[in-house]
């Protein structure tokens, strides 16, 4: 397999490198020169000058973390109440803006529930990392709420969702094939993020968060461009980040499918008037299904059987591919890059040095040790890569199965996974208007209905 073949020469190189290392002598020597406290002698006795003491500024916001957790819990309660019990789009929207201001612009993004997944993964993977309780709650609260109320976190609390919610002014429909295809990315991104967090490589979700630079109104230029691009797309494609990237969205989508309660479009009974059909900017509304004509049933059954049979194969293929991806995946780890660089320098394959390679030489750490470390890291990635592959195989397999299964739906219902519980569809439903008692409006709606029915 490619991975092993590529590792073998690396091992060979290590041996050769260790033989010809001109730095080896330096290495061991430098490591043994600690800064000695005894080299530092007391300052002179000044007559009337007191030597100042530098005191580092304290961390400003420890209590604020808990305030944020509290506010998160409150906002989740409120969002669930507004979306499910009050059915107030206006209320949800107001809460969205409030959360955008607080969690986004005021708290400047960190730590957010999306990023918190990685903290949890790191705590699992790295014994040196202590998971702060507040960060854990940031991850758990949305998940637990979603298990009961659907994605009300996404509806009004998540600041990233909020940015996209407020800019989604001219939403258009994304072709279904594209929507389903792109919809797989969050699951892949989730797996990747967990892998990188658990291997202590880094928090890629934070690194590539398009909105945090906007919240802080400062940051890397390229990230600002990326953020602007996502916002621009978001004007026409509802919540592009939520639908096609957000790893927490993927987690919550799964939880939401199992949620106890969930947003419904019609407050009471759906009359299948079709008025809400095109109301969801996020393409989450599922049409009622009609029973298949009996002549198509065998074909459908074959499709289902194929999908079911394909799923384990896909998982297997994922494992294989994932194993092969170990090396490219490991490239994101700083030590992997460093080892590569150092070895190439030693072999004269590259000119000059980098800051990182110089810093490494300066520590006096033997190259062999670095390489051994990197081999361990790569081994971790081989294992992790297989898991990642298996996970993706599973996701794709389940997706195929889901696409072939025709559920029995009589009403217009939001797809529990994709619906973010924003409540935009409520007011499209004439039943809603009825419940609100606005009969004048009801009449107008009816005429609208006739107009639309007249033009199929």
């Amino acid at each position, binding site marked *: 397999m490619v991975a092993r073949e590529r590792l073998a020469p690396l091992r060979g190189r290590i041996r050769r490198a260790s033989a010809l290392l001109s730095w080896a002598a330096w290495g061991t020597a430098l490591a043994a020169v600690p*800064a000695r406290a005894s080299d530092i002698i007391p300052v002179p006795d000044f*007559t009337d000058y007191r030597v100042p003491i530098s005191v580092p500024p304290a*961390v400003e916001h420890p209590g604020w973390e808990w305030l944020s957790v509290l506010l998160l819990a409150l906002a989740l309660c409120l969002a669930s109440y507004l979306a*499910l019990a009050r059915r107030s789009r206006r209320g949800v929207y107001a809460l969205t803006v409030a959360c955008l201001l607080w969690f986004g612009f005021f708290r400047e993004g960190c730590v957010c529930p999306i990023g918190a997944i990685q903290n949890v993964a790191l705590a699992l993977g790295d014994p040196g990392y202590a998971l702060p309780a507040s960060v854990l709650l940031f991850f*758990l609260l949305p*998940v637990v709420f979603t298990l009961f109320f659907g994605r009300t976190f996404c509806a009004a609390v998540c600041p990233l969702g909020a940015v996209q919610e407020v800019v989604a002014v001219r939403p258009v429909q994304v072709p279904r094939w594209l929507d389903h295809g792109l919809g797989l990315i969050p699951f892949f991104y989730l797996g990747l993020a967990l892998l990188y967090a658990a291997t202590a490589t880094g928090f890629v979700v934070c690194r590539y968060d398009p909105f*945090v630079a906007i919240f802080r109104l400062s940051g*890397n230029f390229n990230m600002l461009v990326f953020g602007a691009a996502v916002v621009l797309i978001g004007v026409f494609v509802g919540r592009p980040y939520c639908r096609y990237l957000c790893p927490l969205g993927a987690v919550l989508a799964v939880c939401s499918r199992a949620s106890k309660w969930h947003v419904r479009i019609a407050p009471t009974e759906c009359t299948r008037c079709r008025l809400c059909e095109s109301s969801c900017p996020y393409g989450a509304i599922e049409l009622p299904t009609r029973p298949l004509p009996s002549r198509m049933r065998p074909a459908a059954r074959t499709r289902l059987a194929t999908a079911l049979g394909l799923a384990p194969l896909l998982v297997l293929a994922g494992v294989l591919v994932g194993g092969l991806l170990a090396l490219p995946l490991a490239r994101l780890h700083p030590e992997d890059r460093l080892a590569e660089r150092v070895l190439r320098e030693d072999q004269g394959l590259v000119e000059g040095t*980098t800051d990182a390679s110089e*810093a490494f030489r300066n520590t006096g750490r033997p190259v062999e040790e670095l390489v051994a470390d990197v081999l361990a890291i790569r081994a971790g990635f081989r294992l992790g890569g297989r898991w990642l592959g298996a996970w993706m195989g599973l996701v794709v397999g389940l997706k195929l199965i889901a696409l072939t299964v025709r559920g029995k739906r009589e009403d217009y219902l939001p797809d529990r996974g994709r619906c973010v519980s924003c409540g935009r569809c409520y007011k499209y439903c004439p039943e809603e208007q009825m419940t609100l008692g606005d009969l004048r409006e009801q009449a107008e709606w009816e005429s609208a209905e006739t107009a639309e029915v007249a033009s199929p």
Partner: protein
Amino acid sequence: MPEAGRTDRRGFLADALRTSGGFALVGAGGFLVGRRGQEELQVWQLDPDKCTACGNCATYCVLDVSAVKCVNCFDMCGFCDICTGYFETNYWSLDTAAENQLCPTGAVIRRFVEEQSGQRFYEYTIDGPLCIGCGKCVKGCALMNGSMYLQVEHDRCVNCNECAIATACPAEAFYRIPANQVEIVKQSAIGVLERRGRQQLREADEDPQLREEGESLLARAAVQRQWRARQAGWDARQQGEEAPRGS
């Protein structure tokens, strides 16, 4: 709310599943948090013993003006007349003229302290708002006493979940530390802090402020010792186990 099509039994099972799922999550999380016996907030800080003053701190921070700034540990400083962290190495005259100053932003302030038997002593302070954390003076000072070093200032840092400098730091000098630790001082500074702390306590007598300062210095030093010891322990363990290295 409506789950009309389902029988009670299915509803009940689903409820049970959800509830136990929720509990399992919370329990697992609680275990993760409790495992370390240390669950407070964490912040980023750089280890000045690893830092090579590469300059990335100045430009990779997500803030327009970096949260990393220089500090001078005065008790390590020589109060020298010719400060290699203050003057260009090829200084022409030892005054505060801009062309002699090493710091490109003029953030190091030189103040005459006193003259002792023909020797003039100066205090070098960092003007926080001017310093951008480029580390030039740190390199200069490293030639002599090494009392200047960089630190993340936590009244400015917004505590990114992943510090942008940590990723870009060529020396892998960034660590997550408990928020109440605040700083990582140089290893050689720990003893200096202790010495100063003891001296303050000796001189304190009546003065409660001196005593308080002395005690807080000793406490700071103790926290630093603890952190270094734990770090050394982890490094050793990780090398033993060949586990992935974390920062």
